[in-house]
């Protein structure tokens, strides 16, 4: 990477590519050369910049100017006016506040928003994900170098333990402890698996890391493998993420070419290789034992635990399964130390959390902020308030398996322990913000329908319980339920939690519990008055399902 006067980035997310980002990129290359600017201006295709509707985007640094809906025909003007003569082409410019996701961070650079704290997404959108050199120049593969030269597996595990990092897949299990279990497990062969089967509705943070900074995941998996004593790794990427799969493949190939993967890495005893396994469309495969079954060529049905994968995982060998976001923290922790990491976030949940902001707000997208920020802050600062000045009614966290959080909890710090105490769950980091126009019953129906489709059907409580709950919700939405049905919903919620084999069934009942705990009056209006206060439910009086 050479020193350059300006940096031009072109968005390369699936939507942009669909709308001709590649043509824009090649036209830019040609025009920059025509003006003799190709030496002093760098041109990079980066991953998702995430602006709804305005792709493809062209960003110019250090001016932080964003051009939207750029077509190859616009390129000449942008190069001549802006890059050659230094005058911003105002009519193609997209205002930063109008942009979402990544742009919260862009705007913070311009001083219009409080800064985010980027660890996981440090490189995303800034480096060329298809260039290993770009990664290396941004401190890439430094951490694994330090470890192989100066640290033992014990040191490595202790650093991760001391950092207080907790799994970002949703459960919040201490990462260092998990590593220690795998290291301590008996076995001559061990595996490291990166769980990139990101399927929680509303969550796309892992996709951005995979598409935007794939080498960070390779480096983190190397560190994990060294620490636990594994020599083989798998990245399980959901099949729908075509771009992420191809970027990851390319990154693994590059790491091989540089001798970073393979036998005797850096001339040490440490050998490690990574395979990619593409999912075939099953939400349940995000559950770690189902994921392992799927790699083995079976139906993705969760195993009975114990034994946990840390002692008997892939091919019955000790296996470490970590989420993408968890892994993306690892190289930074090794580089900067446990104390540095602990200084960010809250004492019980150090570090940052990546949230996807969705729903009835002015700005949707992705932010990475310290643990412990409140919902009110997220909505007012990053989401720029509710759309059309509507009232904030509820937030649904963490994809489907999270909680429905009423407005009364919007000042609770969002970290694992504070949320546990309040009886809600942080989940995977999706924040679906809903206004008064959303009916809680309708929302619960959508969530239960999702679980009904995705239940693997192995255990009865989940397969039958979710279906029955969905039927009752449907009856309520048609105005043909009784108060007794609400008691049944409560009971089903408890039974799902207590009796299901895996996390899918256990959390499937939480929307039922949440709407009855926080929005009972609204649900009862459907039953007693046959009225949907939000005016969403059909209330046709037609009985959809028989009650027993």
């Amino acid at each position, binding site marked *: 990477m050479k020193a350059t006067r300006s940096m031009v980035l072109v968005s390369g997310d*699936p*939507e942009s590519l*669909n709308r001709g980002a590649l043509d824009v990129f090649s036209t830019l290359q040609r025009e920059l050369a025509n003006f003799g600017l190709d030496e002093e201006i760098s041109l990079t295709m980066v991953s998702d910049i*995430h602006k*709804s*509707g305005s792709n493809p985007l062209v960003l110019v640094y250090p001016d932080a100017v964003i051009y939207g809906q750029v077509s190859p025909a616009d390129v000449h003007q942008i190069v001549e006016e802006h890059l050659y003569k230094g005058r911003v082409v105002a009519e193609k410019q997209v205002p930063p506040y109008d942009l*979402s*996701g990544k742009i919260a961070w862009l705007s913070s650079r311009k001083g219009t928003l409080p800064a985010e704290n980027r660890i996981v997404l440090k490189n995303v959108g800034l480096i060329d994900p298809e260039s290993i050199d770009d990664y290396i120049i941004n401190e890439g593969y430094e951490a694994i170098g330090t470890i192989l030269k100066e640290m033992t597996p014990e040191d490595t595990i202790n650093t991760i333990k001391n950092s207080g990092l907790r799994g970002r897949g949703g459960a919040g299990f201490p990462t260092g402890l998990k590593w220690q279990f795998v290291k301590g497990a008996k076995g001559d062969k061990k595996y490291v698996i990166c769980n990139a089967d*990101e*399927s*929680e*509705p*509303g*969550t*796309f943070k892992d*996709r951005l890391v995979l598409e935007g900074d794939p080498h960070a995941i390779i480096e983190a998996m190397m560190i994990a493998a060294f620490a636990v004593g594994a020599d083989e790794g798998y990245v399980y990427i*959901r*099949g*729908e*993420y*075509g771009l992420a799969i191809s970027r990851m493949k390319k990154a693994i190939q590059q790491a091989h070419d540089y001798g970073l993967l393979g036998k005797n890495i850096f001339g040490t005893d440490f050998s490690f290789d990574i395979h990619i*396994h*593409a*999912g*075939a*469309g*099953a*939400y349940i495969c995000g559950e770690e034992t189902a994921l392992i079954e*799927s*790699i*083995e*060529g*079976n*139906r*993705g049905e969760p195993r009975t635990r114990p034994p946990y994968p840390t002692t008997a995982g892939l091919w019955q060998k000790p296996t470490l399964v970590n989420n993408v976001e968890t892994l993306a923290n690892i190289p930074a922790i090794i580089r900067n130390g446990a104390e540095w990491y602990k200084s960010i976030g809250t004492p019980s949940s150090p570090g940052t959390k990546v949230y*996807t902001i*969705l*729903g*009835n707000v002015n700005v*949707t*997208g*992705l932010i990475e902020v310290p643990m412990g920020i409140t919902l009110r802050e997220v909505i007012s600062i990053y989401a720029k308030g509710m759309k059309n000045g509507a009232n904030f009614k509820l937030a*649904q966290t963490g*994809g*489907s398996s999270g909680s429905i959080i009423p407005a009364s909890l919007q000042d609770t710090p969002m970290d694992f322990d504070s949320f546990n105490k309040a009886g809600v769950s942080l989940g995977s980091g*999706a924040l*679906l913000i*809903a206004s008064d126009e*959303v009916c809680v019953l309708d*929302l619960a129906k*959508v*969530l239960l*329908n*999702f679980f009904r*489709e*995705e239940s*693997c059907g192995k255990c009865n409580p989940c397969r039958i319980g979710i279906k029955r709950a969905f039927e009752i919700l449907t009856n309520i939405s048609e105005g043909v339920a009784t108060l007794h049905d609400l008691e049944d919903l409560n009971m089903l919620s408890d039974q799902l939690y207590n009796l299901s084999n895996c996390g899918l069934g256990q959390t499937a009942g939480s929307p039922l519990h949440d709407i009855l705990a926080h929005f009972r009056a609204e649900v009862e209006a459907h039953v007693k008055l046959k009225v949907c206060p939000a005016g969403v439910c059909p209330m046709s009086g037609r009985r959809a399902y028989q009650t027993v």
Partner: protein
Amino acid sequence: MSKEVKQGQDVQKLVRTLVEDLGHEKAELIPILQEINDELGYISDDAITELSQLMNIPTSHIYSVATFYRMLSTEPRGRHVLQFCESAPCHVAGGRLVWQKLQRVLGLENGETSPDDKWTLLTTSCLGVCGVGPVMIIDNDLYGNVTPEQVPDILSNYK
């Protein structure tokens, strides 16, 4: 997704090549099924029988796997497959009305294929592009911020 229908010899040849390329290990079963699904548009009985012999895996196991995953189909599908995201974020962003419109315009329910084999209509779980919901995918083309009014225009792009 327009596929010419392959049968008999062709299917056998395809399955053989895939097993040779990817290997007999059971771990390769799902990748091989994905390839077959891409090539044929679905996983035919012929393909399952052939695969069972070559990989020494019971047809019942292959069938149980092929019917488990959403991206694999054991039924022939239409020339174009429309997948509509029915997850909560798209639903809140106005997806319900788009879905109703799609069903009306195509005259299909979820999972159905039109009599002329042109369209298969499916719902899908989250596609991870929730920032631009409601979202749908036709074959490999992604459409974001879809409104009910746009539906006929979008569909008319497909022959």
